[in-house]
């Protein structure tokens, strides 16, 4: 399978600050790829470089078969972009926005009519054609924005945090729309803060402080990290357990999930060590099992400062 995107040693500095630090990756055609990272990780900057909106300080990117630096216009023909900022005109109606973006993308009247009804359909906007965009609920606006970004049927679609600020139900609807685009053959790059959205992606690229820390399919990543010293303590007193284990220097991380406490126990014979402290403190009612890490566990682990100091 050929690559829709190939980035090698892509770097962006803002003054002395390195926003994106020599990242390299490839995206296969037709995949849905999620960029995951906290605020300031460099996701938007990476996407902007791939779209040709920001010039990389160094490194190169091939998008849709063209070098972004040399043939930005060829790249643009093949990509759609939905920025993190709301990019519709709030003082135009739904219809006017679509007409406008259709116009700037050079759609013929027939194409425009065709795509117009497509957007109305997929964004669930029928009957709202003449509403001002500012009067639409956020979820609908986001879907309209996506519709406007793909009016020209791009091969590759970049979506920068399309689901930020919307509730999970709307988020799922948005992902259905992404699935539909993907089904039509588009390659899709999505950035997000929400780790649960990672499950919708075929590939995940986790970013932290301008670097890629993890790259792979969700199952591949989980397999790769399956031997993390992660344990699940099932107990009736999760808070007490948490407070106890958290104090131990070899417990590098702990978190409560309902009746469970998840811990990283970076020590030899972790199970007996944990048993030891709990029993010493009079807690007997517990069960320790080796847990397979969730993507969130892996993300937290990989983005934690590597100084050995627990990050609680």
């Amino acid at each position, binding site marked *: 399978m050929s690559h829709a995107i190939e980035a090698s040693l892509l770097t962006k500095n803002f003054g002395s600050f390195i926003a994106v630090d020599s990242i390299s990756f490839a995206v296969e055609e037709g995949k849905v790829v999620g960029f995951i990272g906290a605020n300031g990780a460099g996701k938007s900057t990476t996407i902007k470089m791939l779209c040709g909106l920001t010039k990389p300080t160094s490194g190169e990117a091939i998008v849709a078969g063209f070098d972004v630096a040399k043939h930005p216009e060829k790249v643009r023909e093949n990509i759609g972009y939905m920025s993190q900022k709301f990019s519709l005109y709030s003082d135009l109606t739904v219809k006017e926005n679509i007409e406008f973006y259709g*116009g700037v993308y050079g759609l013929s009247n027939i194409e425009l009519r065709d795509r117009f009804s497509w957007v109305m359909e997929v964004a669930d906007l029928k009957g709202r054609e003449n509403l001002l965009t500012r009067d639409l609920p956020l979820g609908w606006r986001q879907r309209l924005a996506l519709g406007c970004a793909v009016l020209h049927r791009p091969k590759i679609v970049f979506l920068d945090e399309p689901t930020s600020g919307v509730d999970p139900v709307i988020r799922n609807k948005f992902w259905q729309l992404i699935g539909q685009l993907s089904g039509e053959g588009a390659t899709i790059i999505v950035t997000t803060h929400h780790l649960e959205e990672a499950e919708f992606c075929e590939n995940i690229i986790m970013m932290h402080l301008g670097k890629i820390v993890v790259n792979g399919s969700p199952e591949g990543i989980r397999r790769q990290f399956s031997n993390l010293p992660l344990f699940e303590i099932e107990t009736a007193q999760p808070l007490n357990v948490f407070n106890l284990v958290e104090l131990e220097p070899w417990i590098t991380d702990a978190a409560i999930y309902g009746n469970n406490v998840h811990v990283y126990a970076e020590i030899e014979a972790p199970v007996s060590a944990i048993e030891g402290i709990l029993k010493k403190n009079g807690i007997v009612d517990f069960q320790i099992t080796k847990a397979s890490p969730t993507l969130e566990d892996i993300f937290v682990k990989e983005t934690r400062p590597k100084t050995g100091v627990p990050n609680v």
Partner: protein
Amino acid sequence: MFENILTIYLKEFRQLKRDRLSLAAIILVPTLMLLLYGYALNFDVKHVRLAVLDESMTKESRELQQKFFSTEYFDFAGFVPGESAIDKFIQDNKAKAVLVIPRDYAREVLLGKRVDVQVLLDGANSNTATIIMGYVDGVLQNYSANLTARYMTRKGFSFASGGIDYRPRVYYNPELKSAKFLVPGLIGFILMILSIVTPAISVVREKERGTLEHISMAPTTPLEIILGKTTLYFVLSLAAAVLVISVSFVLFDVTVRGSVLLLALTIVIFLIGTLSIGILISTFTSSQQMAFLVASLLSILPTFILSGFVFPISSMALPLQIVTYLLPGRYFLAALRAIMMKGSGFTDIYDQIYPLVIFALVIPSIASIRLSRKGF
């Protein structure tokens, strides 16, 4: 190309149509300013206290005095007993100006010769002094083609001996109506706002909102975006000019004496330059406030102060006068006044037109070079 421009234009038009506030401002501001300047903030200095030193003491000289005091611009402030008393008259603020009618006035007038009367002015406020000179010239010109005034202004404690000041006559505004003088200035002022400030803000607003980034992903070029946007502001500016001219015709009887076509041409050349200034400003500002600030500082302020709209250029300090040569407003106002009041033709105002043409060539070039290098 044309379709893309139309797309942008249409969108801009629709947005403006919904933007009641801006729309109201665009229509109301010119009208309001016209009313304000036409009526309330009357630039006319009326009832100037004028003293007379009549050395001629003839029927003719009295007739001349009569001409001055029959207007509402001059009030009689007494007779000055002799030349030596003039200084004191003005120093004691008994009069703002003194009219000196020479001894041989009646004889020269009857012989049909050119006659100079002398007018001595308090020059403390050069603006007022200039306006008074305008009135004197107007009165004299209405009275007789052979009469001219020689002015002396008093700046310090006495009239400088060599301080004779020849002024051009205000022959293009014979009825001394300052509304007529103001209308061209007002048109220039309003066009400056519409063609510099509004397009700059319109582009920067799209930068702020992120929509510009989105459009720039599409195959539409920056030039097409610019043309689409500026076409609207161009049309609006022309409409505003027509509005001001019509309103001032209805309210102040101001008519365009020269060729309307030449007037339109001058406005178009001017607008090409100013719209480009607006676009240029939008390329190096990134917030609406900043764009507004820069655009105002660069357009409204200098136009108001330095292009001769309010303060006559000829009465400015020399360094300021030199600065005015860099402002398109200067040439535009002069050209407009000439066309509207004097009825000047192309050859008469060639000196004003060619600097405007230079502006209309240079500024768009700079703007497009910057755009093609850096984008917005």
